[in-house]
């Protein structure tokens, strides 16, 4: 039978999009100091402005180290969302003034995706940002978006790092300054650059014990002034040493042993080696970004409608090469890690399996599989973290690779003898925050969506069993699966 096509593919996406709920001239993601400043500045030009911030994030997300590396060291207070919300307001008086200027403010609201037309996508009526709170998700249109998403922690693997009490400096600072919800007492700090020194001083200010700092390089790395303050406070900086292992009990970390052999009692090990600009949204929307070693990693290059401010745009450039520093740490820790050291905590991928490009344990490993490794894979082409991720599952878990993506890239650089810059950035994907299916779901989609929805392309001839072609069953089959592509 000749089919009489209508000229319209009703199963294609044109016209079926779920509508946006609002449109703002400017959307600012992240209500830290630079986000608030950007919102106020936009407001002054008369623009309509929406300012969103995911904080306070839910206790469940914190347990998964999203968005920062909390390492299970938050107190029960973080489970009380009202108290947490209050704490955000208390710690950020500028939020009040933003509200007074009629900036629309939404806290506890994450931006999980930014979408716009471009190569491979022309069906969006406008550029939109996907938002979600504890109840639901929705879309907001915008003319300009400002990303003030800050920076996240660089996690580093060493034997024993995968237990409660190993956390990141940004997470520790947030728990101390904003929420008063840090559950540790005695902290060993990894690193001695400004981030580590500032974290140590902050901990002291909050009446905590600092068990020492550990530095793989021969001398402290941060500003002399901060170093002097720590020396004055009699805090030891163990230079030319790395953490060799951490020991723990039921409540997590109890002590750390350094490569020098010294064992230091502590309940928290704070990784303060680096912060990474939080460019998830930029990368997931295929926005331009570039590696800038002096600004802490990949930073957005900026576009007329997408800009980045604050730490998201890069750490302050003091001339310090953050990448070289992190690679020194990676090299030192590669010496102490054993084959069984877990690199990806979510998927329990060990160092041996990562570098062996081996599949997870629920699959069998026949002899040819065991014979494969990163080394054999490199014969086919340069290392690509997304390919390694597909094979080993490192970075595929619920923390969305926050704990291991940077480490994996550094290990690949190290093991393949390439500079870090030669390793492509593993792709970020929306939703850039884990979002429960029922919250991400669009429960109010337009009727056209259901009418257009087919399991695949809605091509009437695609699914007719080959035996039925040219028989009466052919028409019957097409009729039953009819999608409206032809008359």
């Amino acid at each position: 039978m000749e089919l009489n096509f209508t000229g319209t593919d009703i199963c294609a996406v044109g016209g079926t999009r779920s509508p946006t709920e609002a449109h703002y001239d400017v959307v600012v993601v992240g209500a830290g100091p630079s986000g608030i400043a950007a919102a106020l500045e936009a407001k002054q030009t008369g623009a309509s402005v929406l300012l969103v911030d995911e904080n306070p994030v839910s206790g469940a997300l914190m347990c998964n180290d999203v968005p920062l590396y909390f390492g299970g060291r938050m107190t029960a207070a973080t489970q009380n969302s009202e108290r947490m919300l209050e704490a955000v307001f208390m710690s950020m008086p500028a939020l009040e003034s933003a509200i007074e200027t009629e900036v629309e403010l939404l806290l506890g609201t994450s931006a999980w995706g930014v979408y716009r037309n471009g190569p491979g996508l022309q069906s969006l009526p406008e550029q939109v940002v996907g938002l979600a709170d504890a109840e639901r998700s929705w879309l907001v249109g915008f003319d300009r978006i400002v990303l003030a998403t800050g920076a996240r922690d660089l996690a580093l693997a060493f034997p024993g790092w995968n237990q409660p009490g190993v956390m990141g400096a940004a997470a520790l600072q947030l728990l101390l300054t904003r929420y008063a919800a840090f559950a540790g007492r005695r902290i060993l700090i990894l690193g001695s650059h400004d981030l580590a020194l500032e974290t140590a001083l902050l901990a002291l200010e909050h009446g905590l014990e600092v068990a020492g700092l550990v530095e793989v390089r021969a001398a402290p790395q941060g500003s002399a002034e901060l170093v002097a303050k720590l020396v004055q406070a009699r805090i030891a900086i163990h230079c030319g040493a790395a953490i060799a292992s951490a020991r723990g009990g039921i409540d997590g970390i109890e002590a750390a042993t350094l490569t020098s052999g010294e064992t230091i009692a502590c309940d928290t090990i704070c990784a303060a080696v680096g912060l990474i600009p939080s460019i998830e949204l930029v990368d997931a929307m295929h926005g331009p970004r570039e590696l800038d070693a002096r600004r802490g990693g990949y930073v957005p290059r900026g576009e007329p409608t997408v800009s980045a401010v604050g730490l998201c745009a890069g750490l302050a450039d003091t001339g310090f090469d953050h990448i070289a520093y992190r690679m020194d740490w990676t090299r030192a820790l590669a010496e102490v890690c054993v084959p069984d050291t877990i690199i990806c905590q979510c998927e329990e991928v060990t160092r041996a399996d990562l570098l062996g490009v081996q599949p997870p344990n629920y699959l069998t490993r026949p002899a040819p599989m065991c014979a494969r490794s990163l080394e054999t894979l490199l014969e086919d082409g340069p290392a690509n973290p997304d390919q390694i991720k597909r094979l080993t599952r490192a970075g595929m878990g619920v923390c969305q690779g926050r704990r291991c993506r940077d480490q994996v890239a550094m290990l690949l650089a190290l093991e393949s003898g390439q500079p870090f810059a030669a390793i492509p950035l593993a792709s970020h994907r929306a939703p850039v925050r884990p979002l429960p299916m029922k919250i991400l779901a669009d429960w109010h989609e337009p009727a056209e969506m259901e009418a257009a929805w087919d399991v695949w392309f809605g091509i009437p001839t695609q699914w007719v069993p080959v035996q039925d072609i040219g028989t009466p069953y052919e028409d019957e089959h097409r009729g039953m699966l009819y999608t409206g592509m032809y008359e």
Partner: protein
Amino acid sequence: MSGSEVVIVGGGVTGLSAGWWLARSGVKVTVLDKFIVGWEASGRNGGGASHYSSPLFDEEQRLWPQMDDLLGYPTEHQKERILIAMTERQWEQYRFVAARHQRLDHPVEVLDVKQVQEMVPLAGDNCFGGVHYKFGGHANPQRSVQAYAWALQDLGGTIHQHSPVTGFETAGGKVTAVKTANATYGCDAVVVAAGPQIPKLMAQLGVTVPLAAARAEMIITEPAPMMPIGGVDGHKLYGRQTMRGNLAYGGGPHEWLDVDEAGPAARPSTPLARNLARRLAELLPKAAHLNVIRSWAGVIENSPDGRPIIDRLTSPDNVVVASMSSVGFGLSPASGHAIHDLVIDGKCSFADIDILKLSRFAGLEPDWRERRGWTALA
């Protein structure tokens, strides 16, 4: 043909499977891919392997359960599927298809709501019923791609990644070499399995291959408790529970694209993730609290009737073209076998695949895309 050289353009599942089959016959195989193996549709699909509408179906079904052993690498192949109907209309459609299967002697069982809930722990009582296919199945696309690639190498085949093919050299009615920017690969035969780029490549040989490219999207959740059968779909979704437990699902509106020689410039996903999440939350309500952790898109090509084109050309007569028309992952063990046969004997040894010949589109209107509304949005 043993000892001769076959160059394969495209390291997706189709090209790699063909290369693996040829290497098993002692043919010297070189696979050229523009980037990394499986980076396009072959590594981004739903992993479904139950293509009863295809002449390659029996071979697909015969081969998948053996693939791990044959390749020597895990593919995560799992047997069987369950379709759950969430609307009255779906229930009617799914039972219709089930009846068809029964007539074709494909083992199926129609399930009532209680049976669905027993077999699919994440399902609810909000469904109309289901159909259990005691055939078909699914595998992990990314692992399968790499399994083909490694198995092919183990048999002495060569893969050059980051090697986009730019053209061909011809002489005496044959392609004598395949060209990339930096090298020329002499050959006795060529397989063009370059997915959406097939039309532009084949145009260089003066051959028109009618294909339209489109983008399709999927979402994936964090791991859920393992279900006894992972191939659960329905509600106009396709997908699977991975062996790790994640729920990976797709379906719904596609977007037609124009793709140039270099391939898709990007594969963006869209807010369609929300519509997918909604349907998945309805299909598997006991998993509705699970986090969605990624979404992605892939670009695939379709022929005017939605069926693959697997054909050996008459001129030049040493070229086999293979487009799987958006249903090529599951069929890959069988499509590779068929391509192998066409390269070596000019004829498929195990099935009548005349319906997949390119010549069926000889009289196709030049504006076939417009007629179907399959054109890219401006």
